[in-house]
């Protein structure tokens, strides 16, 4: 086995040629660390690493570094997410150094939803905020790689103890303009992305096609691509994602399945919910299995937004347990 870059659990799983599983853990909108710990307890052992979102959908939440530290204490491995929206290059690097000092080993570089999102309309958020975008995701990847591999800060000053980071980023395979997406992935890989978590995949066929191009470009050898799976909790959510989430399209057949599940509940609200949640589990497991078969895919990244407790069941049903361990 080649020398590890960070020695993170996720890196090890991938290096060992195992099918990796990551899952998302959303911090609360207050300073209640217990919430994080609770979620950590539920998720523990069900994935190789856990993404801690960074003010997701532009809503203020407990910082990803602090949350990451909490789950470290709980014995989980965090993937600290870092948006370029909220911090300039100074703040980002300072936070990275701090996070590494606390034991974080994975970092996911993302642009972050624009502040005008404000929790996708459900919350107020901070649409009047001034965003930063001092550097973009690709520049952030380069900066982290420079810190780790060359021992220099982005501005050129030296770093004695280099941060051992497993550098990741997101990728929207079916985003618009679709023809540019593989190239953009290549730019990320060229910049130094060690692993990729994709935007949620529902349209497996389309994803397959994009992956074929990626494989032809040899990118799957240079980075580990984890297919993003967003657990579709109910019909409404599927519809929302199909209509409003960029780069996500839900095939009609999936929509129909979920709709049928909902309808089967008749007038009984509770039954409706139960039916849909059951169907959601089934769909998710199927998606995982389908993605797993796509050449070039090295794992899955599961997002059960504010529904983390569903993860263990899904991972189990998908036959992904137990997760490998290393000593």
């Amino acid at each position: 086995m080649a020398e590890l870059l960070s020695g993170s659990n996720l890196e090890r799983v991938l290096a060992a040629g195992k099918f990796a599983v990551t899952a998302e853990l959303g911090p609360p909108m207050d300073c209640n660390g217990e919430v994080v710990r609770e979620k950590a307890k539920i998720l523990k052992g069900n994935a190789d690493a856990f993404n801690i979102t960074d003010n997701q959908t532009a809503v203020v939440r407990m910082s990803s570094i602090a949350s990451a530290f909490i789950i470290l204490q709980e014995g989980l491995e965090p993937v600290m997410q870092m948006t370029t929206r909220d911090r300039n290059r100074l703040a980002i690097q300072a936070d990275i150094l701090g996070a590494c000092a606390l034991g974080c080993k994975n970092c996911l570089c993302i642009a972050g939803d624009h502040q005008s999102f404000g929790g996708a309309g459900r919350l107020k958020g901070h649409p009047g905020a001034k965003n930063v975008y001092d550097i973009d995701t690709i520049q952030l990847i380069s900066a982290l790689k420079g810190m780790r591999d060359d021992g220099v800060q982005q501005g050129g000053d030296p770093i004695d103890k280099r941060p051992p980071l497993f550098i990741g980023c997101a990728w929207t395979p079916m985003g618009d303009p679709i023809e540019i997406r593989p190239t953009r992935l290549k730019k990320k890989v060229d910049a130094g992305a060690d692993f990729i978590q994709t935007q949620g995949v529902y349209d497996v066929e389309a994803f397959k096609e994009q992956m074929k191009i990626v494989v032809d470009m040899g990118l799957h050898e240079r980075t580990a691509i984890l297919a993003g799976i967003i657990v579709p909790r109910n019909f409404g959510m599927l519809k929302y994602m199909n209509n409003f989430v960029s780069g996500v399209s839900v095939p009609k057949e999936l929509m129909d399945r979920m709709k049928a599940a909902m309808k089967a509940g008749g007038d009984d609200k509770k039954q409706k919910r139960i039916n849909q949640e059951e169907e959601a589990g089934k769909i998710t497991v199927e998606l995982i299995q389908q993605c797993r078969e796509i050449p070039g895919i090295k794992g899955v990244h599961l997002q059960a937004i504010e529904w983390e407790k569903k993860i263990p069941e899904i991972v189990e049903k998908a036959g992904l347990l137990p997760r490998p361990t290393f000593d």
Partner: protein
Amino acid sequence: MIIADQKPVAEIKGFIEGKKKVLIAGCGTCVTVCLAGGETEVKNVASALRIAFKNDGKDVEILEDTVERQCDDEFVEPLLARVKNEGFDAVVTLACGVGCNFLSTRIGPVQVFPGVNTSFLGSNEAQGDYLELCAGCGECILHLTGGICPMARCSKQIMNGPCGGTSDGKCEISQDIDCGWYLIVKRMQELDILGQYDEIQAARDWSKGTHGGPRRLTKETAAMAAEDDAAKES
């Protein structure tokens, strides 16, 4: 040109509450063209203010004046003289922020209030329709992006876009806003220079923009020698 948008007249009224004699000053250049602060808008704002104060039972004299440009001494001087000679106790300028600054630093102890929100550098797409096209960032990178500016037209000012938020050519923040990077990619395809897109653009040096502190530009070859300038003045 500079695009501005008129401030709500209620806000303007709030600025000058308690004043006795106020000059509404228009500018004949950019803000005239973008229908925010030319003579016509001056008339409208002045009229609305007169009605408002009259209804309040307040005796406030609101007068009007419009000069060619509020960012040049030669044009502004008559305006300043008028303010002084006729005893105005406030000025509301419908020029862009430049005009408001310019007047404020020359007018003495009379407060100058902004009557417009200076919005951006943009184009006139159609009658009454303006579009931001340049961010005035201080170091133009349009040669890298097919002539379409990611600083002005990408919501996240990404240098290596587009982000994952593009859909149907629109930006993630609104269906009414074109994705700058979508336009850039399409333009590069049209020009057959998409190859350039492969290159990673390094982090920008923002010091050329406002982040480097207030900017001043001196074109040495055009500037007057200090003594000539003084001679001209005397």
